[in-house]
C-alpha cells in the first residue's frame, strides 16, 4: 500500500468531516433524522480518522530515527515556508493518542449535548485535525499555524458549552496561551532570519551562540510551560478544566497539555541543547515544585474537576522532570547510557496521563450529567447505586495514583528510576508523588464512591448506560494493556529517543 499522503489525510479528514457536520446542522431536535445523520457523520469521521491512523502504527519503521511518511511541498515562497509533514517515534504515539481519544469524546457527547450539537461535534473534529497537524508539522511556521489555530475551537468549546464562569475561563485560557506562544513566534522568526529556512530539522542543525540560545530557550519555555502547564504559569488550567464541558476537559487534559511536552522534545531540546543544559536546574526545580507543591494543592480541593486538574499538573511535572534530568545523570554517572530512560519515561507518562486523566474527567462527567454538581461533598456512597461505574472510577483512580499493573505506574517508575541516577534527592522528592497522588486520588474516591448513601440525589442515581460503559471500558482496557505490556509503545519511540539523547549531548555552540 502507498501511504504518501497519509499525514495529510489524518489532518484534513477530520477538518473536512467537521465542515460536513456543520453543513448538516442541528435538525429540529435530538431525535430528528437530520440530527442523527449529523451525529453519525461526526462519529464516522472520527472512526475513519482512527482507522486511517492505524497504518501509522503498523507501517512505521521502528529501526529508523529518520522522519517517515514525509510530505514536502512549497507553501509560501516569499518566506521559504514549506508544507512539510513527517513523523518519528516521538510524534506517532501522540498522534495515535489523539485519534484514539477523539472518537471517545464524540461517543461520550452523544445526545447529552443539547445546545448546538452540530457546532460542538464540528469543533472537536476540527480541533482533532489541528492537533494532529501540530504533531506532524516539520516546518516551524506550519507548526505555529496549527499551534495557534488550535486555540480557536477550544476557545469556543469552553465558551459555548462550559459552566457558569466559562467566559472568564475561556478568555483566560486563550490569552494565557496566546501570550506564551507569541514569544515562541518571535524566536522562530529570529531563527528563520539567521538560517533562511523555517525547517525544524534545519534548526536542529543550526549552530547558535549561547546568549541567543538562552533567550530562545526562555521564549520557548514560556510557550511550552504555559501549555504543559508548569508551575507557576499553571493557573489557567484549573479554571479552564472546571468550566469546560466534559469533552473539552478530556481533550484538554489528554492531548492539548501534551503539546507542551511535545514542544520540548521537538524544539527546545534538539535546537537548544546547550541552553537546555545550562538551565536544566530551573526545569528540574519547576518540575519538582509541580510534583510536590501542586500535589498538596490537589489534596485540599473540594471540586472533583479541579482536583483532577491539579493532579494533571503534578503528573505533567514528571514529564518535564524526565526530559531534563539527562545532564545530571551524565554528571553523576559519567555516561549517557540509560539517560534515555528519563525521556522514554516522560513520553510514556504523557500517553498514559492522556488516557487516565481523560478517563477521570469522563467519570466526573458521568456523575455531573446526573446530579449537575462537581462538589465532592455532594456525593458519597455512589457505589451503592452505581456499582459498575464505581468499579471503573476506582480503577482509574488507582491508575492515577500509579498502581503497578496500570499505565500510570510505568511512566512514573521510569522517571523516578532515572532521576535516582541523577540524584537521590530528586528521586526522593519525585517519589513523594506516590504518597501524595495516592492520598488525593484515593481520598476523593473514598468520599465520593464509598460510605453510606449521602443524600437523596445519590440514592436516585442510575448506573452507567451502554454508551458510557463502552467509552469507559475501552479506556480501562487501554490503561491496563499499557500497564502490563508497555513494550509496543516503548519500541515505537526507542530509536527516536536515542537520537534525541545524542542531539542533546552534542554542543551547538
Amino acid at each position, binding site marked *: 500500500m502507498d501511504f504518501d499522503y497519509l499525514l495529510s489525510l489524518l489532518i484534513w479528514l477530520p477538518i473536512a468531516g467537521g465542515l460536513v457536520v456543520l453543513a448538516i446542522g442541528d435538525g429540529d431536535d435530538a431525535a430528528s433524522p437530520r440530527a442523527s445523520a449529523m451525529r453519525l457523520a461526526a462519529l464516522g469521521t472520527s472512526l475513519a480518522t482512527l482507522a486511517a491512523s492505524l497504518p501509522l502504527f503498523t507501517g512505521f519503521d521502528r529501526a529508523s530515527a529518520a522522519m517517515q511518511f514525509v510530505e514536502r511541498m512549497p507553501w509560501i515562497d516569499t*518566506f521559504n515556508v514549506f508544507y512539510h509533514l513527517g513523523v518519528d517515534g516521538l510524534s506517532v504515539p501522540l498522534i495515535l493518542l489523539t485519534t484514539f481519544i477523539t472518537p471517545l469524546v464524540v461517543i461520550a457527547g452523544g445526545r447529552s449535548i443539547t445546545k448546538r450539537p452540530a*457546532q460542538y461535534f464540528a469543533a472537536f473534529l476540527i480541533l482533532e485535525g489541528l492537533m494532529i497537524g501540530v504533531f506532524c508539522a516539520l516546518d516551524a511556521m506550519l507548526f505555529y499555524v496549527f499551534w495557534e489555530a488550535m486555540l480557536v475551537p477550544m476557545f469556543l468549546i469552553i465558551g*459555548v458549552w462550559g459552566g457558569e464562569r466559562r467566559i472568564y475561563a475561556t478568555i483566560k485560557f486563550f490569552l494565557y496561551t*496566546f501570550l506564551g506562544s507569541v514569544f515562541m513566534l518571535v524566536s522562530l522568526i529570529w531563527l528563520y532570519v539567521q538560517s533562511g529556512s523555517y525547517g525544524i530539522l534545519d534548526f536542529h542543525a543550526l549552530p547558535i551562540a549561547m546568549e541567543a540560545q538562552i533567550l530562545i530557550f526562555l521564549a520557548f519555555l514560556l510557550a511550552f510551560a504555559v501549555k504543559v502547564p508548569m508551575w507557576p504559569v499553571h493557573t489557567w488550567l484549573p479554571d479552564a478544566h472546571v468550566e469546560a464541558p466534559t469533552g473539552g476537559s478530556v481533550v484538554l487534559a489528554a492531548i492539548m497539555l501534551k503539546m507542551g511536552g511535545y514542544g520540548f522534545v521537538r524544539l527546545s531540546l534538539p535546537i537548544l541543547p546547550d541552553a537546555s543544559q545550562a538551565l536544566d536546574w530551573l526545569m528540574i526545580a519547576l518540575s519538582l515544585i509541580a510534583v510536590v507543591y501542586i500535589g498538596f494543592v490537589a489534596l485540599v480541593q473540594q471540586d472533583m474537576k479541579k482536583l483532577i486538574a491539579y493532579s494533571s499538573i503534578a503528573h505533567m511535572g514528571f514529564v518535564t522532570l524526565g526530559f531534563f534530568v539527562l545532564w545530571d545523570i551524565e554528571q553523576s554517572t559519567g555516561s549517557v547510557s540509560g539517560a534515555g530512560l528519563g525521556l522514554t519515561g516522560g513520553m510514556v507518562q504523557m500517553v498514559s496521563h492522556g488516557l487516565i486523566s481523560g478517563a477521570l474527567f469522563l467519570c466526573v462527567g458521568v456523575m455531573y450529567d446526573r446530579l449537575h454538581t462537581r462538589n465532592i461533598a455532594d456525593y458519597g456512597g455512589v457505589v451503592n447505586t452505581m456499582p459498575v461505574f464505581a468499579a471503573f472510577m476506582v480503577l482509574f483512580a488507582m491508575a492515577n495514583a500509579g498502581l503497578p499493573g496500570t499505565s500510570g505506574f510505568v511512566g512514573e517508575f521510569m522517571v523516578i528510576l532515572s532521576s535516582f541516577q541523577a540524584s537521590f534527592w530528586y528521586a526522593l522528592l519525585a517519589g513523594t508523588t506516590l504518597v501524595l497522588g495516592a492520598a488525593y486520588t484515593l481520598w476523593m474516591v473514598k468520599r465520593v464512591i464509598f460510605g453510606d448513601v449521602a443524600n437523596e440525589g445519590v440514592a436516585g442515581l442510575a448506573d452507567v448506560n451502554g454508551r458510557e460503559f463502552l467509552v469507559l471500558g475501552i479506556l480501562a482496557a487501554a490503561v491496563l494493556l499499557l500497564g502490563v505490556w508497555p513494550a509496543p509503545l516503548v519500541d515505537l519511540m526507542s530509536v527516536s529517543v536515542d537520537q534525541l539523547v545524542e542531539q542533546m549531548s552534542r554542543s551547538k555552540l
Partner: protein
Amino acid sequence: MDFIVPDFSPALPEIVLLGLICVVLLADLFVTDERRIITWWLAMAAVAVTLLAILGSAPDLRTLTFSGSYVADPMGQILKIVSVGLMALVFIYSRQYLTEAGLRRGEFYTLSLFALLGILVMISANTLLTMYLGLEMLSLALYALVAFDRDSAVAAESAMKYFVLGAIASGMLLFGISYLYGVTGAIEFGPLSLAIRDAGPDDVALWFGLAFLVVGIAFKFGAVPFHMWLPDVYQGARTPVTLLIGSAPKVAAFALAMRILVDGLPELHGAWQGMLMILAVLSLGVGNVVAIAQTNIKRMLAYSTIGHVGFILLGIFTGTEAGYQAAMYYTITYVLMAAGAFGMVILLSRRGFEAEEISDFKGLNSRSPWFAAMMACFMFGMAGIPPWVGFWAKLNVISAVLDAGRFAPDGVIYTWLAILMVVFSVIGAYYYLRVLKCVYFDAPEDSAPLTAPREMQVVLSVNALAILGLGLVPGTLLALCASVIG
C-alpha cells in the same frame, strides 16, 4: 514656447473616472428619489469601468507624465485596484442602509467617487503638489460625507472636528512642502531626492520641513499622537461613511507615506526612521490599550485601526524593501478586514436601529450561525490568529523588522520592537475576543432576523472567506506585494 501634448495614457483611469463622475453628477439631477437606484447602478458602473481602465493600463515599469508630476507604476496599480474594489464594497454594503435611513441621495455617490479620485491621484502623485492636490480632494469629500446626515448633531460635530483638525494637518503638510521646496528648489520626488543627496542630509531646515511632513502623514494615518479625530469621526459618521473612511483612505495614506518618504526623501531615512518608530510604538500602545475600554464597536474599531497603523508604520520604518512590501501587504489585508467588520455593523443595523454597541452583537450565533462565523473571520483576522490572513500580515512586518535589525548598528532595538508588536497583539486579541464573546457566548437580546439584501450577504461572505482563504494560501498576494516594490 513649445507646447508639448503630454502622454495621457498613464492617467487614463483617473481621466475616465472624472468623466464618469460628471455623468453620475448630471444624471442624478434627473433621477427622482424613488428611482435613486439608478444612481447606485451608475456609480457601480463608474467603479467597474475605472477598474477595467486600471487593469488595462498594466504598467510594467515606472512611467512619468505631465512633466514628471504623475507616475504610473506596478505598486500604484495594485493599490488602485484595491481602492476601487473597496469603493465597490462600500456601495454594495451601504445601499439598503442608506435607503432605510432616508439618506439615499445622489451626493453620497458623487462625493464617494470624488474621494476615490483623490485617492487615485495620491497613489500616482510624483510631486509634492500633486500629492497635496489628491489629498485635498479626498479630504474635502470626506468632510462633506461625515456631515452627510445633516439632521444629526453628532455627525455635524464630528465633521467639524474632522474639518478643523484636517485643515491644520493639511496646513502642516503644506508648510513642510514649502520648506523642502525652499531648501532644494524641487517638488518632484526624483529631483528632490537628488538635491538632498547633493546637499547632504544634515541640513536642519530639511529636518524641520520633514517633521511637518511626517505630522501630516501621521494625521492622515491616524497615528498617535495625531489620532484624536479618528474615534470621534468613526463614531459620529453614519456607518457607511465610517466604512468608507476606514478602508480606502488607509491605502491612500500608505501611498502618501511611500511616495513622500521612500520616493522623495530616501536620503533622510535616518531622520524619519526615528519619528516613525515613536509614532508606531505610541500607536500600538494607545490604540490597543484604549480599545479595551470601548463599548461602541465603531469606536473600538477606530482604536483598533490606530493599533494596526502602528504595524504599517513599523514596516515603513525599516527602510528595506522587505519592510515596504510588508507594510503594503498589511495595508491591503487590513482594509479588507476593516471593510468587512464595518459591513457586519451595517448588516446588523436596520430601519430605526443602529447596531453600534458591541452588545448589539450578542447572540449572533443563534440568529445566524453563518454570519457569526463570518464575524469570527474578521475578528480573528484582525487579532492575527493563524490561519487568518492577519497573522501573515503581522508575521511579515515582524520578520521584516527583525531582518532589518541584523544589519543595523543598534539591532537590539529591532528585537524589542518585535517583542512590543507581539505583546500588543496579545493585548489587542482581548477586545476582539470580547466581541466574539458577545457573538458566541451570550444569549441574543434581539432576535429580529437579518434583513440585509442578498447581494450584500453574498459579498460580505466572500469578503470574510477571502480573509480565511488568503490566510490559507498567502503566497500569491505576498509574492505580488514583493514583486511590485523595488
